[in-house]
């Protein structure tokens, strides 16, 4: 009898628990799942997510859950999800150079105030005039140089001229203002700080060349191309098998074959370029703005790192924005839109910047120059020199294809004459 009563009591309690669990909760928040990649951007975004979930999110009835995929393969995983028309994630991580590829799977964003953002960044996320993603971090390139070394050039003018003649076959005099450098100035300076030509140079190599077969290295090489008056396309047709295209390939080829960079730089990317500078092995490099924090505080470049725009007569820097876009197949469109609207506000991006992000809002960057001096350069260069190729939906593929075709010439295995036509063919194939 006692057992029967106990069983009934247990069954009643269980029914209540199950009943409460399955009853719809009028106050339940909709969970929005957003993909980002780990690293500084993911860390900074977590602060914004936490802030939203504990304040505005409660009013909106939305809880944001951020999923960090791997740094290297986030876009590969997203590609598979997009192609499967998955609704697993509501918000995708994207970027200016990918938005053309991702556009068919992203909803159009409405109400984005262009005036809040760096023009180059917000415009780079438009496809056929429609805003497809919201800018987060802006990335561009600086010509980094050792201020202490460049300052010593004037005192060694004769030696500089002699080395420039030997290495480049040109009569050049030292130019101690890197902001006005041509590529000849940059190459001659790199030669001067290469021990092979100047045994008294404090650095083993003058230049740190990221020449690995990697699409992000094509973005850096683009600065050289544009600086020499070239472009991927002219009137919609591939334009690298031209004097300016070949000259840009030759700049990298000269740096490598003349030994102005390490022979290992054929496999270098971001990290190795940084370590070449901070270890005191190299004097200059075109590198991403994100490197400034490390370069300005570490090793041989600590307090000695200078910033200039990429050399060239028509100075330009590649600029792109990392971004988030709304999955067209998301089942939580309205809730996701609420979160995106919050993310587009100045307070949200202030939180993002405070946690280490580099938002594309100039008003916020200006206010943080005291903590990171390079923010002033980002605003200036993005406006003055910021540029990106507009090569259509397969632009991302083109970056990769060009890295594949050009990297043998960058590292001296082939010449510009060998690869320029193949580069045009690679672009043409992807334009179809």
């Amino acid at each position, binding site marked *: 009898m006692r057992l029967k009563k106990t069983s009934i009591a247990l069954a009643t309690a269980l029914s209540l628990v199950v009943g409460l669990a399955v009853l719809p909760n009028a106050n339940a928040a909709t969970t929005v799942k957003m993909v980002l990649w780990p690293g500084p951007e993911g860390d900074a975004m977590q602060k914004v997510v936490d802030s939203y979930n504990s304040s505005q999110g409660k009013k909106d009835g939305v809880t944001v859950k951020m999923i960090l995929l791997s740094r290297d393969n986030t876009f590969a995983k997203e590609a598979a999800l997009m*192609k499967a028309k998955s609704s697993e994630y509501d918000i995708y991580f994207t970027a200016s150079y990918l938005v*053309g590829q991702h556009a068919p799977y992203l909803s159009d964003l409405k109400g984005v105030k262009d005036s809040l953002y760096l023009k180059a960044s917000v415009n780079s996320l438009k496809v056929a005039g429609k805003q497809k993603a919201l800018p987060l971090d802006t990335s561009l390139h600086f010509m980094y140089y050792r201020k202490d070394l460049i300052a010593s050039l004037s005192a060694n003018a004769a030696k500089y001229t002699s080395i420039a003649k030997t290495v480049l076959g040109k009569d050049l005099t030292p130019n101690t203002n890197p902001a006005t450098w041509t590529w000849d100035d940059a190459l001659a300076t790199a030669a001067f700080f290469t021990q092979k030509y100047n045994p008294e140079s404090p650095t083993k190599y003058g230049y740190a060349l990221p020449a690995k*077969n990697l699409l992000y290295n094509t973005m850096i090489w683009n600065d050289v191309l544009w600086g020499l008056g070239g472009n991927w396309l002219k009137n919609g047709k591939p334009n690298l098998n031209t004097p300016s295209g070949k000259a840009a390939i030759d700049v990298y080829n000269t740096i490598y074959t003349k030994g102005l960079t*390490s022979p*290992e730089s054929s496999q270098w990317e971001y990290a*190795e370029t940084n370590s*070449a500078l901070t270890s005191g092995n190299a004097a200059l490099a075109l590198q991403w703005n994100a490197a400034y924090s490390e370069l300005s505080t570490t090793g041989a470049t600590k307090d000695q790192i200078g910033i200039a725009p990429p050399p060239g007569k028509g100075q330009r820097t590649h600029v792109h924005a990392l971004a988030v876009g709304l999955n067209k197949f998301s089942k939580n469109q309205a809730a996701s839109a609420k979160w995106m609207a919050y993310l587009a506000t100045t307070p949200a991006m202030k939180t993002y910047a405070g946690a280490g992000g580099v938002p594309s809002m100039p008003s916020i960057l200006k206010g943080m120059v005291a903590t990171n001096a390079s923010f002033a350069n980002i605003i200036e260069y993005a406006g003055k020199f910021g540029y990106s190729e507009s090569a259509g939906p397969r632009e991302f*593929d083109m970056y990769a294809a060009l890295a*594949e075709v050009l990297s043998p010439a960058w590292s001296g295995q082939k010449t510009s004459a060998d690869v320029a036509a193949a580069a045009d063919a690679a672009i043409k194939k992807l334009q179809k």
Partner: protein
Amino acid sequence: MSTTYSQERKIAGWLLSAPLLILLAGLLIWPMYLGFKTSITHDILSEFETYPAGFENYKNLLVEPNFWSSIRFTLIFALVASVIELTLGLGLALLFDRIFPGKRFLFSLMLIPIMIAPSLMAVMFRLILNENIGIIPGLLSKVGLSYSIFDQNNIFTSLIILDVIEFTAFTFLLSYSALQNMSSEIYEAAAIDGANKRQTLLRITLPILKPALAIVFLLRILDSIRTFDSIYILTGGGPGTSTQTVGIYIYKTAFIYGDFGLAAAAAIVLVLLLTPFMPFIIKQFNLGTESSR
């Protein structure tokens, strides 16, 4: 009509095997079917719609120089790495096939590389061998030596060395276990007949180990053909496509160029290219099993 005993056994055999066969179909045949279906589809990430393309992807693949150069690189890499790994693994197994002080410790030490994921090994290599901050170039420069491990002229050798460091443990372990299965009576008989160490090795040990070594070699070849992560992390397949394995080609085609149809066709062709090896492996496996009975 009553069923015979042998028929009942046959039915029971199928019934008992059914769960495994269903699992196999789910995990192997179904994905292969989907892969084939994708390979006959025009399926590009930047294009929303997909549509049947017949054998267009296969036709494109046949005239795709990067695919064939990646096949060539993969085969050369797999062959060179596997030969070195088998030779070293067998040599080490013969060395360890005796009692000596510290054997257990050294044995455990030998197995460490195989426990590390290839991608992690590649990242460690990248750090240790970094010309600017790596410990190996630092030590070499202290004694006045320099060797550019990632110099384009040395990169193939460097990749082989990495693979050998990682996978010699595998060939060593299998060769060693095959050696342990050999009867000591054979060696005693050889000693009584006056065979010296060299004769014993060449005329007794190696012929008996041959089926096992063939299996080890082919397993390594097949595994090396699938090499992806370590080379992708170290070189990205470059400069150009000079170190691009077929795995990297397939990955880039699918996830960088967004051409899933072409990538699936390449994967199917790779399977077809590897299939002729299978009867040989199975034959060697059967030989090994029979000889151990």
